[in-house]
């Protein structure tokens, strides 16, 4: 195998192609899985991501952690392979597996060399993991213990405590607010995983994204192999609508030297009509790193924090808008006041024309940086595919950014970020 790998490396030098646009091809497999494909031949690599509508939003209310465990135990045993054989086969191909479950999606990623023997072996392995996981009870028992150990440790850390409390507070009664606990993981049995897998890892809930060194015909065959043994299933049932939280401020005592502060609420979904005004506006408010208002006010002017940001995470339903920072506990109230004032001023007046111009310059001029590797392209394509966004989303991105006005930003922010729904969580406050 070593020789074949080396031949692959030599080919690298020959190919050279500047790529400014991403052409996504799309089709549906006979079993009903949606496929999204970008052919790029420069590197002898193939990246695949299979996403199922099987994220933690589908966890039963009394068993948060089930989606995550199901996903992470796909390689605990599959077909007639035990976990040692699985890891051995994977390693022998040089391929890498990744992925996890977020709120909406359970994802499995594969990066493999495109040379045929390696690729075939890796794809065959992934097919087995997706279609025939055995979820051995002994492995589940061990992994539950490891997960519980991790939860216990995380529940001592201010960042983790604050983040979980924040999500629970902004999504009261909604699955986006659930998180795995020692008790909920303790309740999960092997049958739960088997049922979760057979109900949710189905063809019609799947989108398969493929980027790299293969032809359309090869991609078609690959997508069929990965999905043809899955039950067809039905459309994913809708995730419940989000009910906005009531304004509140939660203080969680903790011994840490720094306070961890979170401010936010559910605000934006994938495919949201306000996406571009919120994107550009957030760059100005707290997404643009050094040049954002929050960084200037909290860090540059006052030295209050190393990291301060604002961020939208769109999901199928309204995903969180979150402002976060860490600051010496004695100055937590003062720092929070700066955040509140900065946000209020932005909501009231919106960005200046100069700020808008600068934001657009960065987002438009820097667009090529978002798609300058296969990995970055895969991330976008998988997102577009899973959420059913337009295939020309990436082409439209700079054009849509260019069209955004400051009035639109102010309007979108004032509708989406209402003070009466804002939740503040302070861990280790003064």
């Amino acid at each position, binding site marked *: 195998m070593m020789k074949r790998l080396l031949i692959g490396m030599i080919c*690298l030098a020959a190919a050279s192609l500047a790529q400014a646009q991403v052409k996504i091809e799309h089709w549906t497999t006979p079993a009903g899985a949606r496929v999204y494909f970008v052919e790029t031949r420069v590197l002898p690599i193939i990246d695949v991501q299979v996403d199922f509508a099987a994220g933690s939003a589908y966890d039963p209310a009394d068993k948060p952690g089930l989606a995550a465990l199901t996903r992470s135990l796909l390689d605990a045993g599959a077909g007639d392979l035990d976990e040692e054989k699985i890891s051995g086969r994977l390693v022998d191909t040089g391929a890498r597996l990744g992925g996890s479950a977020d709120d909406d999606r359970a994802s499995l990623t594969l990066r493999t060399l495109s040379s045929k023997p390696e690729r075939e072996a890796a794809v065959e392995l992934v097919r087995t993991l997706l279609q025939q996981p055995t979820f051995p009870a002994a492995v589940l028992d061990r992994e539950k213990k490891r997960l519980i150990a991790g939860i216990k440790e995380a529940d001592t850390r201010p960042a983790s405590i604050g983040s979980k409390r924040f999500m629970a507070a902004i999504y009261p009664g909604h699955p986006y607010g659930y998180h795995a606990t020692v008790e909920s993981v303790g309740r999960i049995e092997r049958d739960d995983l088997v049922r979760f897998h057979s109900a949710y890892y189905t063809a019609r809930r799947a989108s398969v994204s493929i980027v790299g060194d293969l032809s359309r015909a090869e991609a078609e065959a690959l997508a069929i192999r990965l999905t043809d043994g899955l039950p067809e299933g039905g459309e994913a049932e809708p995730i419940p609508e989000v009910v906005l939280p009531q304004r509140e401020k939660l203080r969680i005592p903790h011994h840490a030297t720094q306070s961890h502060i979170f401010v936010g609420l559910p605000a934006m979904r994938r495919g949201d009509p306000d996406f571009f005004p919120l994107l550009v506006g957030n760059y100005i408010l707290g997404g643009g790193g050094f040049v954002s208002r929050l960084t200037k006010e909290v860090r540059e002017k006052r030295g209050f924090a190393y990291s301060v*940001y604002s961020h939208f995470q769109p999901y199928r339903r309204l995903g969180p808008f979150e402002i976060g920072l860490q600051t010496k506990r004695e100055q937590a109230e003062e720092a929070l006041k700066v955040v509140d004032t900065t946000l209020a001023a932005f909501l009231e007046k919106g960005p200046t024309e100069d700020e808008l111009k600068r934001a657009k310059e960065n987002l438009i*001029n820097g667009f090529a940086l978002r798609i300058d590797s296969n990995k970055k392209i895969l991330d976008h394509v998988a997102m577009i595919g899973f959420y059913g966004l337009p295939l020309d989303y990436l082409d439209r991105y700079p054009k849509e950014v260019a069209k955004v006005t400051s009035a639109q930003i102010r309007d979108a922010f004032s509708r989406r970020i209402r003070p009466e729904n804002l939740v503040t969580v302070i861990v280790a406050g003064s």
Partner: protein
Amino acid sequence: MKPRSLITLFAALAVAGAAAAAPAAPATPATPATPATPATMAAAPAGTYEKTLSNGMRVIVKEDRRAPTVVHMVWYRVGAMDEVDGTSGVAHVLEHMMFKGTRNHKSGQFNELVAAAGGRDNAFTSLDYTAYYQQVPANRLDQMMALEADRMVNLIVDPKEFSKEIKVVMEERRMRTDDKPQALVHEALMATAFQAHPYRRPIIGWMSDLENMTAADARDWYRNWYAPNNAYVIVIGDVDKDEVFRLAEKNYGKIPRRALPPRKPLGEPEQAGIKRLTVKAPAKLPYLAMAWKVPELRNASKDRDPFALEVLAGVLDGHDAARFSKTLVRGSKIAVSAGAGYDGTVRGEALFFLDGTPAEGRTVAELEQALRAEIERVAKEGVSPEELARVKTQIIAGQVYKRDSMFAQAMEVGGIEAAGLNWQDLDTVIEKLRSVTAEEVQEVARKYFKDDALTVAVLDPQPLPEKTEKKTAATGLRH
């Protein structure tokens, strides 16, 4: 599912969190950017070129035409290891101050100009080096070079700006170290393993030194070390090498060479006996970290042991089927996680690390025995041809995958240069790794893992104070 080790070898500190660097990758906005550690497992990028300017500054270029973007980095051969007692952390503080204004640009303008170009920028400080980078559309390279050249000579360390930024760095220390029990363990481990060598000081600096640092300390650091003959520039992307050399000459070529302070040899007395330490901190799980003094890579053509040590780390913890996962996590289930790491590509002294967290009901003492037993097993029984082949397969595949990231390629070039080797050695490194034999792996396992060269650090978890949440109807936000 693979239990990842918590070891981050010589991780560098960055000036900004990830929110600045990656607006497109929103998963963990609060996590500071952690650039790839310089790995020895590396291949010389095809089509790499080099030129030395008349002032001694080296320019290394790789043409990679996949996308119309470029990464531009300036690396200075100065890091935390060049500091002296009392001003620990100054290399990193100066890195922060490099964004705070020059004779030609006001504070913060550097970031604004990079942002307007559509770019992302950051910087990082390690024990060995300090590096600055921008990722921009390829047609903005000239402007980026002009900006870096400007702050190489025209920096103003303004006391008022300094007084604010030093507070930011103290917040960074609280976030990275003071509130992170395992980071405290690693800090104490380094401070104990080395008694004379400067690797004993943390990159971020001791809090007391930060509290007492002055603008003059940062200014002195800059005047001493920031010179073209102490720097090299790396450019990878959609560029023509001759054009890059021309732009480098135009922007950097005019900066005069300066005499650098003498660098004295920094020896560590030979350790004679095991060292043990305990860190108490509020936490739930105990944690164990062990470090042996081992050889570093000095001559890529002649050295053998550093490559065998690298392969040994791979056999123990290099992939999903490696021994620690298989034996300690999945097999005996003694560990929740276990890791091994070695980075020989360093200016200073190399350590071979093992670390882990015991499973519930097991002790750190048992875990220590189990980790030692794995080394002893290699020493006694060696490694199988299959294990060796698997490690090498990972190395070779990793070389191909790395080409997907211009940033990772630039880090690899920068890292090997920082350790005093050359980018041309990257090919040799791969050849040498591939030539490592099972006997050599067994031999290094026998030779270097003696108690006399070992430091063992343990986290003794302390109960957290009781907590009760308070809820108030929030007030105070104007609308």
